[in-house]
């Protein structure tokens, strides 16, 4: 365990080198929220759409974007690069679990940007929408758990997709499709906007559980909802970790390290 903490620690230190890129993404985040704010302000004329008020809707977008901006999706690119360039060779030489080493590394590298984005999300929520009515501070611990599960499961899914580089010369289409599914099934819209029968399916799928799951918990919390969503997220987390381990352990046998 200690070694994984050290990995996260050094990764925090390393991430501070990239302050400029965090600043750039903060600006981008602001632009995103602003565009959605304008969009929803135009659309909303009455009080509610599919059970969401305008205030809730803006907070919803702030939260789903938060997940997307700090969920370490870069792991896809990194896996892809490490496998294809053969950099993975040095990392296979060490006494660690490769999958968890990468996870620890990601936790460290996003610690700084995640705190920046959390502050941004809450700030922009208040600026553009104002406080959420009936928000219960006692719900915060469960909300945090839900976010952590979201980020973890997104990480291991992206990692599995990246590790497909072991098998395919070109694996980015998988990632592209995954990103779009996240976008349409939860990030852009709460799934309540979609037909009832799709909601029945989507609330069990990782795409919606990553974005819609925690965001809805922020804007419209209920214990009943939390205790339905969190176990499902946890189950998908376990599945995605196992998936990454499976793809890795099969793929590593195929590793080709070129050059010499």
């Amino acid at each position, binding site marked *: 365990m*200690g*070694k994984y*903490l*050290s*990995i996260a*620690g*050094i990764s925090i*230190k*390393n991430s501070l*080198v990239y302050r400029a890129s965090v600043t750039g993404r903060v600006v981008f985040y602001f632009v995103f929220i602003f565009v959605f704010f304008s969009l929803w302000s135009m659309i909303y004329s009455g009080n509610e759409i599919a059970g969401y008020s305008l205030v809730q809707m803006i907070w919803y977008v702030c939260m789903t974007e938060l997940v997307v901006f700090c969920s370490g999706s870069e792991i896809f690119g990194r896996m892809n690069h490490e496998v294809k360039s*053969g*950099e993975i*060779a*040095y990392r*296979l*030489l*060490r*006494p*660690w*679990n490769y999958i968890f080493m990468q996870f620890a590394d990601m936790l460290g590298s996003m610690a700084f940007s995640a705190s920046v984005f959390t502050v941004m999300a809450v700030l922009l929520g208040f600026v553009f929408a104002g406080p959420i009515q009936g928000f219960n501070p006692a719900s915060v611990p469960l909300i945090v758990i839900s976010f952590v599960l979201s980020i973890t499961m997104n990480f291991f899914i992206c990692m599995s997709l990246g590790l497909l580089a072991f098998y395919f*010369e070109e694996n980015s289409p998988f990632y592209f499709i995954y990103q779009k599914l996240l976008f349409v099934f939860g990030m852009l819209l709460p799934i309540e906007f979609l037909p009832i029968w799709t909601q029945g399916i989507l609330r069990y799928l990782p795409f919606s559980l990553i974005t819609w799951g925690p965001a809805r918990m922020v804007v419209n919390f209920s214990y009943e909802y939390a205790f339905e969503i969190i176990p499902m997220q946890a189950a998908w987390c376990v599945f995605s970790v196992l998936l990454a381990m499976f793809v890795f352990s099969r793929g*590593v*046998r195929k*590793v*080709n*390290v070129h*050059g*010499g």
Partner: protein
Amino acid sequence: MAAIVLENLSKTYRVKVRGEGLKNAIKSLVRPDYREVEAVRNISFSVNEGEMLAFIGPNGAGKSTTIKMLTGILHPTGGSMNVLGYNPVKDRRRLSYNIGAVFGQKSQLSFHLPPVDSFRLLSSVYEIEKSAYESRLKRLADLLELNEFLDTPVRKLSLGQRVRCEFAASLLHAPKILFLDEPTIGLDVVVKHRIRDLIIKLNKEENTTVFLTSHDAGDVENLCRRAIVIDHGTVALDMPVKKLKYDYLNKKVVSLKLNESAGIPEPPGVELIKKTPYAVKFSVDTRIAPISKILAMLDAGNIADITIEEPPMEDIIEAIYMGKREGG
């Protein structure tokens, strides 16, 4: 005792083959053709504990592939191996506590951070106790003279400084076997010597087994007693370096720049390669004519500059093959 044993080890890659043109591109989408590339074919040998072995051969001969199989990075397609009692395929993690590697063309240090940060991380990854780590780092830093730049970000180090840090990183956990894949590539003579001295010292004091691939004849000559030559994935020669040297490393190329135009003596064993009025290049067969004897025959006062080179490893390997063909 044997530290490394290989028996009929093989590695075959499957490479997708693409024909030219659109028709073949579409065909490869539907039914791709694969070509089998045999990187390593049935090699068998063993290396004793404390031995320093040179594993040499031309580019693409299978040297790196073999090292990567022995370290557990690549999985062999056939045969078996045993490294320090472990099977690298199954016991990669347990084996990794006992081996170290330097790949001359790849880095294991965090690019933006000072080397000391990477060292500290490695000490925790290898579960080295704090006091043991500190004394080990101090020793390596002294031997490799790292103290000046331990706190400088790696991106600001010169190649020589960086490679010295790579060595320290690979040696922190006191590995029993050190795998070196082209470790001195691109380094100047001074750094090369410092690294060679370190390897010799570790081998003497800690009985570290060294498995070296290098294109540098100097590395091979100065470090190893035994050399295995590999070509096209098979062992071509396995002999003491002394004999290899006697048979194949016996040529030196001397280039002279002269103050005044003059000839050079040409006793047996000396062969003129090129001559212009103020420069002479000749090769010396040191079996017939010791280099010191030849230098003594030159008019020292007339020499403006002199370089003595060893033939590159490629030439030596070519010579080995020529010799084999002539002999057999």
